[in-house]
């Protein structure tokens, strides 16, 4: 008997209102992530990549279909339970880094541990270890506004991994980075994927990301146009 996927979407649909019009952002999309996956979701702007990440990451609720974690549907969970699942099982990397500006790099990374009630000293120890892994050992006490774009994204990646999630969802993680830095970030992500077995799903239209993918899903107009 095979284990259920870590994270799966079944016939996911999402419609948004845009003034009087209704826009079908995602239409009956099926996707599943298993341990060690490195999936890239490709597609032009407006194809539904971010919507798919939002639904799989429990940031939004689908109009149709369902999201399953380890085979368990999670559609009926309340906001607190969904927040707990995001905290414990999903890591996020955003295009614009989304670091908390009043916290240092170390404090940003440690933040999700605090949500789980882990003590300050232990949180800081683990955060420093992760910063070391992403090559930012000397920047622990630096606030985000004094870090470069690449460094900020490394901090965001460390933060996404601090609670040892099963899945990391990354929305355009290289979009705001120059090509050299983007390559470094992708190598880092891929390395973490291979070493830790964490499943990654990256939404992008950056061909350099596609080159590193094990699986590519192409979205067009909210539907899966191809998978390879």
């Amino acid at each position: 008997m095979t284990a259920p996927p870590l994270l799966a979407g079944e016939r996911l649909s999402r419609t948004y209102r845009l003034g009087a019009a209704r826009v079908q952002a995602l239409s009956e999309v099926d996707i599943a992530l298993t341990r060690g996956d490195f999936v890239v979701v490709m597609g032009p702007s407006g194809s539904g990549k971010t919507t798919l990440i939002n639904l799989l990451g429990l940031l939004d609720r689908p109009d149709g279909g369902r999201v399953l974690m380890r085979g368990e549907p999670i559609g009926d969970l309340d906001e607190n339970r969904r927040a707990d699942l995001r905290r414990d099982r999903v890591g996020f990397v955003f295009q614009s880094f989304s670091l908390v500006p009043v916290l240092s790099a170390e404090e940003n990374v440690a933040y999700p541990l605090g949500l789980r009630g882990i003590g300050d000293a232990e949180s800081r120890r683990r955060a420093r270890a992760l910063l070391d892994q992403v090559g930012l050992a000397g920047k622990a006490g630096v606030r985000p506004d004094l870090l470069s774009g690449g460094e900020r994204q490394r901090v965001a990646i460390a933060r996404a991994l601090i609670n040892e999630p099963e899945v990391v969802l990354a929305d355009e993680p290289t979009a705001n980075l120059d090509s050299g830095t983007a390559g470094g970030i992708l190598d880092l992500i891929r390395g973490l994927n291979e070493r830790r077995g964490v499943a990654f799903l990256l939404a992008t239209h950056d061909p350099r990301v596609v080159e590193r993918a094990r699986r590519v899903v192409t979205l067009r107009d909210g539907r899966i146009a191809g998978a390879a």
Partner: protein
Amino acid sequence: MRTWRLAWRNVGRNRRRSLLCAGVVVVGFAGIALAGGFMAQSLEGLREGTIRSGMGHLQFAARGAFDGGAGAAAEPLIDDAAAIEAALRSDPEVVEVLPRLDFVGLLTNGARSVPTLGTGLDPAGEARVMDQPKSLAAGRWLADRDERAVVLGAGLAKSLGLEVGDGATLLATTADGTLNAIDATVVGLADLPIKELDDRYLAASLGLASDLLMTEGRVSRLVVVLRDHRDAAAARPRLLAAIGGAAVAGGPGGAIEARTWEELAQFYRQVRTLYLGIFGFMGAVLVAVVLLATANTMLMAATERTREIGTLRALGTRPGAVGRLFLAEGVLLAIAGCVAGAALSLVVRLALNHSGLTLPPPPGATHGSTLFVKFYGAAYAAGLVAMLATLALASWFPARRATRMSIVEALTHV
């Protein structure tokens, strides 16, 4: 990251805005603390003035006397006053017992008569605990219980053209209804703060009043002064029990009643109600101003942090925890504002108390008083509670917004 630490960092994020917000709290807190101190000082002065102007802390009288005689032809009097006085004096909390014999009479200089509100009293006892004997405008206080002398309100003396050393005749109706008159010497003039009283006031020795009214040792009231004004209500049943069994002549039930100073001081109660009303209204206006100013500022700050709220929520922060973060920021601003407000209040209070400013006399009074603002801990506590509640309410708006916000919309907020 612990909520309070993050809240503190957020408060320090935009210092100018936080200072502005805390500044509003400073003004609100100082307003409440200073107004409360002024009110407390005024009420304390009025209370002590009321008690020391003759009211005492407790008064004992024959049943019905406090209600104007309860239909009796003459005011009921306390019989065997000396025994009751002795019983009252035996209580350790009692500082002084003052027998009083009240009467309404006429004072005449031979050519003109003026109605008076007279009181026969124990001059030595009154001099020990009351203010009147210490604040005479002219002459001296009465010497002993049997002196054939009177002290007049300055207004009363003026209306009759009487001065210290002059003779006058006092007329009154005796206990059995006949008219009696006694000659007395004016030995002192009292300057009373209330004009209506100043125009009618007459103090006589208890012996003179007793002879005039032919009451033979009976008195209208026994005024008791305690060590502490707060003990009046508690002392009443104890003292009534101590004097139980004393006979009362003329009283309908043969019993003695007691009233506390607060029950008797209608003017004090009215002023206190008025002050509380004014203070409450002013406090409400201050709170409303602080609420509007800080709620707007905090909502603006929260709007600027919309994406950050989305990030915190996405990372797994529960909606309630994000709401609590804003509440914590409000509470920190309130505490910082209150600490600064307390310091400001103390400085302003010091300056006002050394300014020598004189307040105009209140309605019906003849003397103003020097401005003094008391340190009133309850007003500081009220200010702290009011500002904490106001800032918590002000931060409730952004907290509610953050709690209900869609994460996706927050993350894409521009």
